[in-house]
């Protein structure tokens, strides 16, 4: 073997060593980068996905009526502005039974509106409609409105909220998957 080929093969080896070192460094850098990117998935580390918060005094929700309530999301970042204010519908059936519906249509999340005369929730987007108990009346939604779990403490109505309800979510499926009439509070 001539000196030249020997030295090229040595250099070729050094190139491989260099690439190998870069591979190790690359992995060492990739792990934190990927973890950073996936951080929204680490639910346990982000408390407040589902926490109890007050919608205010019961007196605001007269019996037999459905009223709009708003709350501030439990997790708020400085840049969130108004987006952290969330609305929901509170239905006081008979002062003992309550239902709290998400504002988001169970079809694709548009804000449903309550029409007291016709006793219907209607969605402005694709024409979804729901009965007063939140069950599906017509249109593209596959199911009734999402419902928040709620409790009454010291004359205040509390709901468990903190995450945007979407049709595919396990939480959402748990909440109000069946006709809400069928279950007495606490709806679990």
């Amino acid at each position: 073997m001539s000196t030249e080929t020997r030295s090229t093969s040595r250099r070729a080896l050094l190139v491989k060593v260099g690439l190998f070192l870069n591979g190790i460094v690359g992995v060492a850098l990739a792990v934190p980068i990927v973890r950073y990117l996936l951080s929204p998935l680490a639910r346990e580390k982000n408390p407040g996905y589902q926490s109890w918060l007050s919608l205010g005094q019961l007196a605001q929700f007269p019996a037999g009526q459905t009223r709009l309530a708003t709350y501030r999301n439990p997790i708020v970042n400085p840049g969130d502005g108004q987006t952290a204010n969330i609305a929901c519908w509170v239905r006081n059936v008979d002062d003992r039974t309550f239902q709290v519906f998400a504002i988001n249509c169970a079809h694709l999340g548009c804000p449903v509106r309550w029409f007291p005369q016709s006793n219907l929730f209607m969605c402005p987007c694709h024409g979804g409609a729901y009965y007063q108990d939140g069950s599906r009346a017509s249109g593209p939604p596959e199911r009734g409105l999402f419902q928040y779990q709620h409790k009454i403490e010291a004359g205040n109505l509390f709901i468990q909220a903190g995450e945007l309800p979407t049709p595919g979510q396990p939480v959402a499926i748990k909440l109000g998957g069946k006709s809400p009439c069928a279950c007495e509070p606490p709806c679990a």
Partner: protein
Amino acid sequence: MRLIEKIVAWFDLRLQLGAPIGDIAKHQVPRSSASWFYVFGSAALTVFILQIVTGILLALIYVPSAGEAWDSLQILNHNVALGWFIRALHGWGSNFMVAIVLIHMVQVFLFGAYKFPRELTWIVGVLLLLVTLGMAFTGQILRFDQDAYWGLGIGASIVSRVPLIGPWAVRLMLGGPIIAGVTLSRFFALHVFVIPGVLIAFVGVHLLMVLKLGVNEWPMPGRIVRRATYLQEYRELTHKDGVPFVPDAIWKDIVFAAFVLLSIALCAVYFGPFGPSGQPDPTIIQTAPSPDYFFLWLYALLSYLPPSAETPILLIGPAIAIVVLLGLPFFAGEGEKSWKRRPIAVLVILLLAVGLGALTHLGTYTPWSPVMNAWSSLPIPSAYLRGRTALERRGALVFQAKQCHNCHPR
């Protein structure tokens, strides 16, 4: 004059770009391709450059924060000199870009330009279409108004329906549990860094292949593409009946580019910027969100799909469409190029155009949506009441008082 030549020579000695640029300019293209039908690719590139320039200009004022984005758009519209014009240029530029990319694609499809050896050019082109639509969607989000907010909700709801990974995908998309500041930040990063980077890379590859493989010749009925002979035939064609790209072909590109830019500017001046509509406050529910023009067909489709078929169609449909588009050059890589001998190709285009056109048209007046602000006690026309029984009139009263007008307008 001598001075300029000297300066040019000084630079060229160092950059060595003169010769390759000269080659590109002088390379022979089939005489038939120096046609007005071949100007859409370069027009798309021109609009893309306009989008980069106006995008950077907007970034000078825009604040990508959920709490302030809407206000910064108002400032652009009202307080910054000609801010409204730059916004309008960018908005109209995006509409033109999607339109031109689609026209370009239809032309390439009907002229059989995706066949051997330009399969990869087509595939990169399909990716460019997807990336362009990605720009259109993320751009619509950056106009952080009510439509953008609820549009994100719709996007999240669609993503959540993906089996198994849906809920995780939603959280990755939103960056947190709800639509908020982080959501806007990640869409800003996508719209301003990630997607444009990909777009520039793909455009580079796309252009490179157009130059290396030569532009598609005008398809002649009966001139069949065969893998074994095509390259040779194309070479002969450009030798025998070729013209230099500059100036024989490029002048049409240049003229059309100017026409497109002028049209965008005229639209911007005449129609003004898009929105922003109401503030992105989720507690303001008096809103009827609707997407921008190029997604209206989807909006209509979502209203008409039967509930049980919706999720599969929504998730599988786009995947099939993309696979078909990407696979097209592989199952139709040879054969007839001319649309005159490809009736099915023409039919497919017509069908798609009519279908998308009809859905878009429906999307502009949403016959499926309740009229949310219908005046519920609007009187029933007296013509319906004349000669009715008391019971029937009572029914009319119910109709009038129960907000039935919302869904059953006259």
